[in-house]
């Protein structure tokens, strides 16, 4: 880690203020162009034929009638894509097995979920493309399917992959299983820890799968040339990852694909993966025309990666004075049709908020007949936190302790040994707990059937490959090219602010642009709360490089030694007024002479940002339970979170509010409903019920800043942590309100009524 990038406390002029975002006017006028807004001359419309079955063998595919339909210019099936061997490639995601990527993109031997692509067509109009799909004859041999994670783990469950044996189990199993992988984390001795405990709480929790719910369906347009080049415009969180994966599945050189990211209408992790892109490129190659593919909402639900549904068992032991002596959990997550759920990070952050000597966590990655899961904001952590934070709350109540006091007593701090690996560095968990406890919300009065719940969340945050380049224009303004996509958080504005701060100029003299893939080498996806952290670091490095070049240039122009030149407040000045003096030069002065003194001034950075700082949050929620209907109303919500440093406080608040509301939706109403045939019954926004404005109050936010020592401005990143705590916070509030402990998500009215009924009937 370069020492120059460590956090420095200093007076700031731009960072921490609230300028208007550079992409804002385009977005409020409808001018901003998202994937579906791009059109090319001569374009064809591409559509995908999707499996109507949850699990079936493909016996044959007959595309002849579709090909013969006037207006159809190309059809692709599995025959048009090379099979890929089991190859794990780090192309910017949790391990990618290309054998699975190519099958998820287009089914080969089997269809593994309702919605699995089987063929794709490109035609001169959408109507003709849709008609062509109905003419493709696919012969299926329907197989038994399994969706529920617990059912999929049973020894007699239908198998999706007869050649999969559970990894991580010794000795190697003799029978195949839907459990792709089992992992285990241990610290200390839980048996002894439970032996020491005076109070034990043990619970089992189940959550249903949910979707990221971005309002913009996936959209892309591909255009290929006769000499093998491809241009792709797509709405994505990671254009380099998309380029890399398309190149691999299409067996093309990476340099022959140029991906231009459009504005993106929400991602949250769901747009880290390719879906239609390689199909569009392949169809364009076959038809020799651009091919535009836009998903409809039903396809987004049926076929793009949502989260896992999970089963989590938690056991916690503590002594009567409130010290946790042992913590154990087993998490089983649906991975979807191919292995690779977020059960590993979920297992790792389940108990990390607490300083524990004895921990045992088991994680099971289980394949089931639904789409391959994708990331969703702190992937896996909300499911783990729902279980663990509910049990923490129950334990606090059993011990007669205040929920925040109980957490403080066991809180992780700097130097706490985690059970998955290293010790924690400088963190702000305790600060968020104390800020929550001091908040007026925590002591406000409550009425009948109203209750208050607290829960906390932790996420690692990441860095990753990131590039930035800064160019000083002839008039002294600055253009910054960014390799990281601005998904929504406004990080493009924050980048401009950090560059303006470094250079000492006004922020409106800095114009940020997200570059296409031809501009930089590989950049990781915008995910993991990394854009402002890693993007910011790259921008700072680029800005400092530019400042060095500016100093060198001024030294030459003014004919003074380099050490005599100081860069401050947007200009080059003599470093020591008593010695070598010279007339200062502003950025504009230098820029005017730049061409004739060696060339334009620039600075660039290509880094793999390390030192991401973990984020912690504490949420307080008040709910009211309507006994006749079982409806839960959110009365008041407060998010307290350590973000390290809020570069632009309004955007940080927006992340905290948006993430919390996604968590509220996950808690109250969102779920995938499958029929007995394994087909998704609610692939639309009417029956997949996300929060609307009238469901919610204002979401109060408290920004805590414990600077990340590894970032020049102390940034931790903040986008993911806010989604983690709401489910448990609401469950805890419901328990506080009406005395029922809900262990099933979502806590929709029928489930609440059932639990209330059980209480009335005298069961526990």
């Amino acid at each position, binding site marked *: 880690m370069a020492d120059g990038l460590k956090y420095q406390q200093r007076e700031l002029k731009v960072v921490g203020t609230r300028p208007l975002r550079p992409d804002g006017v385009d977005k409020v006028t409808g001018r901003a162009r998202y994937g579906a807004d791009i059109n090319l001359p001569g374009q064809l419309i591409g559509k995908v034929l999707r499996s109507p079955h949850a699990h079936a063998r493909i016996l044959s595919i007959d595309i002849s009638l579709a090909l013969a339909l006037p207006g159809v210019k190309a059809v692709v099936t599995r025959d048009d894509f090379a099979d890929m061997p089991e190859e794990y490639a780090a192309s910017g995601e949790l391990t990618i097995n290309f054998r699975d990527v190519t099958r998820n993109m287009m089914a080969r031997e089997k269809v593994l979920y309702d919605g699995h692509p089987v063929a794709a067509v490109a035609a001169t109009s959408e109507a003709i493309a849709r008609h062509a799909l109905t003419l493709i004859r696919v012969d299926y041999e329907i197989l038994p399917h399994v969706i529920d994670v617990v059912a999929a783990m049973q020894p007699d469950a239908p198998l999706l992959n007869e050649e999969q044996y559970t990894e991580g189990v010794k000795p190697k199993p003799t029978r195949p299983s839907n459990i792709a992988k089992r992992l285990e984390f241990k610290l200390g001795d839980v048996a002894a820890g439970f032996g020491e405990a005076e109070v034990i709480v043990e619970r089992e929790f189940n959550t249903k799968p949910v979707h990221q719910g971005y309002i913009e369906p996936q959209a892309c347009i591909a255009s290929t040339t006769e000499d093998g080049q491809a241009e792709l415009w797509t709405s994505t969180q990671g254009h380099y990852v998309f380029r890399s994966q398309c190149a691999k599945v299409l067996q093309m050189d990476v340099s022959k694909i140029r991906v231009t990211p459009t504005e993106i209408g929400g991602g949250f992790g769901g747009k880290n993966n390719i879906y239609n892109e390689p199909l569009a490129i392949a169809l364009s190659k076959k038809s020799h025309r651009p091919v535009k593919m836009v998903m409809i909402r039903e396809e987004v639900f049926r076929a793009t990666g949502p989260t896992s549904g999970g089963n989590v068992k938690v056991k916690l032991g503590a002594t009567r004075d409130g010290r946790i002596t042992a913590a154990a959990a087993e998490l089983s997550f649906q991975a979807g049709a191919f292995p690779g759920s977020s059960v590993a990070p979920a297992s790792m952050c389940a108990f990390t908020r607490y300083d524990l000597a004895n921990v045992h966590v088991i994680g099971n990655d289980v394949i089931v007949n639904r789409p391959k899961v994708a990331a969703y904001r702190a992937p896996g952590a909300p499911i783990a936190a729902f279980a663990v934070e509910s049990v923490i709350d129950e334990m606090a109540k059993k011990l007669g302790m205040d929920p925040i006091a109980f957490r403080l007593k066991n809180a992780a701090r700097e130097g706490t040994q985690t059970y998955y690996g290293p010790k924690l560095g400088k963190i702000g968990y305790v600060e968020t707990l104390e800020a929550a406890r001091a908040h007026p919300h925590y002591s406000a009065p409550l009425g009948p059937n109203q209750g208050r719940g607290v829960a906390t969340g932790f996420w690692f945050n990441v860095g990753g490959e990131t590039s930035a380049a800064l160019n000083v224009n002839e008039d002294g303004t600055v253009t910054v090219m960014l390799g990281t996509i601005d998904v929504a958080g*406004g990080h493009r504005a924050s980048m401009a602010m950090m560059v303006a701060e470094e250079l000492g100029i006004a922020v409106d003299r800095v114009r940020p642009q997200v570059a296409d893939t031809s501009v930089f080498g590989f950049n990781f996806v915008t995910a993991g709360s990394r854009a402002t952290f890693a993007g910011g670091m790259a921008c700072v490095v680029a800005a400092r490089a530019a400042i060095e070049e500016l100093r060198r240039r001024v030294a030459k122009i003014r004919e003074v030694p380099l050490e005599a030149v100081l860069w401050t407040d947007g200009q080059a000045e003599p470093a020591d007024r008593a010695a070598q003096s010279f007339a200062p030069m502003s950025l504009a002065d230098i820029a005017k002479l730049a061409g004739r003194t060696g060339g334009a001034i620039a600075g660039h950075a290509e880094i793999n940002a390390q030192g991401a700082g973990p984020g912690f949050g504490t949420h307080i929620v008040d709910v009211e339970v309507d006994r006749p209907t079982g409806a839960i109303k959110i009365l008041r919500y407060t998010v307290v979170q350590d973000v390290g440093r809020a570069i632009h406080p309004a*955007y940080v608040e*927006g992340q905290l509010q948006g993430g919390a509301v996604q968590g509220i939706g996950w808690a109250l109403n969102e779920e995938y409903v499958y029929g007995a045939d394994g087909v998704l019954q609610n692939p639309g926004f009417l029956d997949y019920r996300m929060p609307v404005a009238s469901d919610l109050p204002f979401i109060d936010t408290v920004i805590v800043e414990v600077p990340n020592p590894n970032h020049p401005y102390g940034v931790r990143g903040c986008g993911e942590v806010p989604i983690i705590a709401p489910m448990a916070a609401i469950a805890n509030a419901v328990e506080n309100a009406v005395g029922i402990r809900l262990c099933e998500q979502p806590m929709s009215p029928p489930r609440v009524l059932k639990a209330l009924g059980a209480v009335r009937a005298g069961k526990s």
Partner: protein
Amino acid sequence: MARHHVTATVNGDAVEFLCETEETLLEVLRDELRLTGTKEGCGTGDCGACSVMLDGRLVCSCLVLGVEAEGRAIETIEGMAVGGDLHVLQRKFLEHAALQCGICTPGILIAAKSLLAHNPNPTESEVRYGLAGNLCRCTGYHKIVEAVLDAAREMRGG
């Protein structure tokens, strides 16, 4: 199948277009007239991203057929700013950071404008229910509601 010839007014300009019977007004706006500011989020009238005004009435353009626009006046997001001046709602959305990815923003602005035309002094609850037909996944609605209330205040002369 012969297409239908339709004449209408969009943002004050006379337009004419051809469309299939089953084509929606949303598809016509985006694909025939190339006004891509109005967005498709669901195609089934559940998300409000396609909100436009049809003869002064707020509708989901994905639930209106292109042929139904015959002789009628449509207002879309492209008509909200007048000359070089943003509408007060657009300004307030920027000031309050009431947008993140921006995909729902055109629909919400049209819906908010319609709300304030009917109710210039709404309570917080009335704003929330007035916008309940518009899904936003990024903001949690907090800053959107603040921006609409602030715009209403300014529009009343406050």
